[in-house]
């Protein structure tokens, strides 16, 4: 381990950020189902209720529409709020409040009403959770002006980006990945935050740029290691926030390698992968040696059977196969 670093899980990194920010600003309140004494379904608020009490850790029943709307109203009235959907899938009950109220109120009020809210939820497939608990629809939010969208892939990013999200004066979608919560990573021992809109080069390479977020960064890194054995040098880049998007960092990498592949747990249609594809064409057209490549989940609801789901969501093997194929074509 490097000097000044320590190991922590992805989920605990979030708890640390929350603890620090709730201690820093007593006007911060956390609302959600099971986030009180239980410490959250994913242990994502463990210990906070014991420290900050019932008043600031507002456990609710199962009522995402009400809880999310209440959180937005509290933010409009001057509090700083985190609302936890727990599973991002459940935000569907509350989408009208997210899109119609949280995203627009600052604009429609001519800048007079701020909505400092973090809307938190865990996305993605984990342990055959089935079609109601496995969505990766983070791109939907990026399509709505007024919402910032954060999709961290590692513990250090969770902590640094969560702190920035809480301090932001507008609505931020903070979308973690269920399957990453227990993963371990190194984070700085000192206090820090990470600005939005700054991509991270996870691994340098020269033959192809591989863009991925959230859990797909892990897949990308493993694929890059495997491809190295085939003589292919992969640069892995993680935008970390979809809105704002670090277009410059992505374009710089593509210009360097001349090729880009986008890896996405969501289907290809009208999503993040298409956005990066467009970016490559708009900004790097003359530098591209081949058309951009999209490696996405197949467009089906998440099946229960591990065999079927494994076929649907991009795997390391599939990434290796498709990148090799595109380079050798």
């Amino acid at each position, binding site marked *: 381990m490097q000097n000044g670093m320590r190991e922590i899980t992805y989920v605990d990194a979030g708890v640390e950020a929350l603890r620090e920010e709730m201690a820093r600003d007593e*006007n911060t*309140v956390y609302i959600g189902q099971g986030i009180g004494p239980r410490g959250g379904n994913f242990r994502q608020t463990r210990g906070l209720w014991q420290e900050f009490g019932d*008043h*600031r850790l*507002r456990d*609710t*029943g199962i*009522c995402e*529409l*009400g*809880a*999310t*709307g*209440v*959180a*937005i*109203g*509290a*933010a*409009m*009235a*001057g*509090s700083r*709020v985190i609302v936890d959907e727990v599973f991002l899938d459940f935000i569907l009950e509350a989408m*009208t*409040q997210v899109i*119609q*109220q949280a995203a*627009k*109120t*600052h*604009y*429609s*009020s*001519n*800048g*007079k*009403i*701020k*909505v*400092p809210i973090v809307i938190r939820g865990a996305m993605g497939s984990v342990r055959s959770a089935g079609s109601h608990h496995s969505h990766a629809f983070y791109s939907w939010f990026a399509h709505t*002006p*007024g919402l910032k969208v954060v999709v961290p892939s590692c513990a250090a990013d969770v902590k640094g980006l969560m702190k920035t999200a809480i301090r*932001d*004066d*507008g609505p931020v979608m903070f979308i973690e990945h269920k399957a990453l919560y227990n993963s371990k990573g190194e984070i700085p021992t000192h206090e820090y935050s990470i600005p939005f809109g700054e991509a991270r080069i996870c691994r340098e390479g020269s033959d192809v740029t591989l863009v991925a977020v959230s859990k797909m960064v892990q897949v990308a890194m493993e694929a890059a290691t495997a491809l190295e054995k085939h003589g292919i040098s992969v640069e892995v880049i993680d935008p970390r926030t979809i809105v704002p998007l670090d277009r410059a960092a992505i374009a710089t990498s593509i210009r360097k390698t001349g090729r880009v592949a986008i890896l996405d747990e969501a289907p290809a249609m009208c999503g993040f992968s298409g956005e990066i594809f467009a970016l490559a064409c708009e900004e790097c057209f003359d530098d591209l040696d081949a058309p951009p490549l999209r490696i996405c989940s197949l467009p089906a609801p998440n099946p229960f059977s591990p065999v079927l789901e494994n076929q649907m969501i991009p795997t390391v093997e599939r990434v290796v196969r498709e990148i090799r194929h595109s380079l050798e074509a």
Partner: protein
Amino acid sequence: MMQAIGTVPDTAMLLDLYQCMLRLRDFEVKVQELYRSGKLPGFVHLYVGEEAVAAGVCAWLEPKDMVFSTHRGHGHALAKGVPGRDVMAELYGKVTGCSGGRGGSMHMYAPEYGFMGTNGIVGAGLPLATGAALSAQLRKSGQVSICFFGDGAVNSGSFHESVNLGTVWNLPVVYVCENNLFATEMAFSRATKNTSVASRAASYHLPGVEVDGNDVLAVYEAAGEAIARARNGGGPTLLECKTYRIVGHHEGDPGTDYRTREDLDSWKQRDPIKCFRQKMTSTERVSAEAFDDIVRETEEWLNDAVEFARNSPEPIAETVMDHVWAS
């Protein structure tokens, strides 16, 4: 001037209530005229006939208190103290409007007057007002949050989830249902078996009160108790004001396809402003001259608002992207 709960309103208060109702009425009648002559873009839902509710409730509010309104919200904005100029200019889409022309009828915001928004989505204000009350409770600000909504909202999930949370957390919020008997064109009696909104309070264990929403003094009295309860830590109240809009759902809807002419006429007989004036003058609590003074003042006030709006500049096109982001 604020009066003690349970006391009979003095003459000054009676005149204030009249002035408020009359401003709301005259404003909307003017909006109707302007809209029909093509002067205003967008869509408008007028508050004609329901003025006693906003007037009776808002008479008790302090500037710091917060009001969350509906698609039929011009009256709520005016009653909470947003200047007529700001509201009218917003309807014109002018830069001097309360939302700088970015909002329009259904997105009016004036937090500087405690007016937290009209809203284009039925029921959306319920959780927002509840949340604002949570914030007030956490900040110990002494603010009360008022949520206006119609009978159209009470069969939605928003109503159930919000009233439940507001009650279990004992929040300083008053849920004011303006039951005008129709959700757009759908009769309340066809939409639900239980047509008493106030009775639904029993399900959540909060006080439920029904009043004649066309009787401003009845609304005033009931709202005074509910607001005092909220302010003193007694939690929320569900206040059902039975009323009627004597215009269509939106301007352009004749409002007679789903209501009988007889019903409409009988409600016009119960016009809250005429009835109040009649009752006050016949009992000699207020003189006709005092009312007439207010009629004249209101006309001047309204002319000023329209002139201001008409003469205000349009927004600058290039500012379209301003305020998408707060930081």
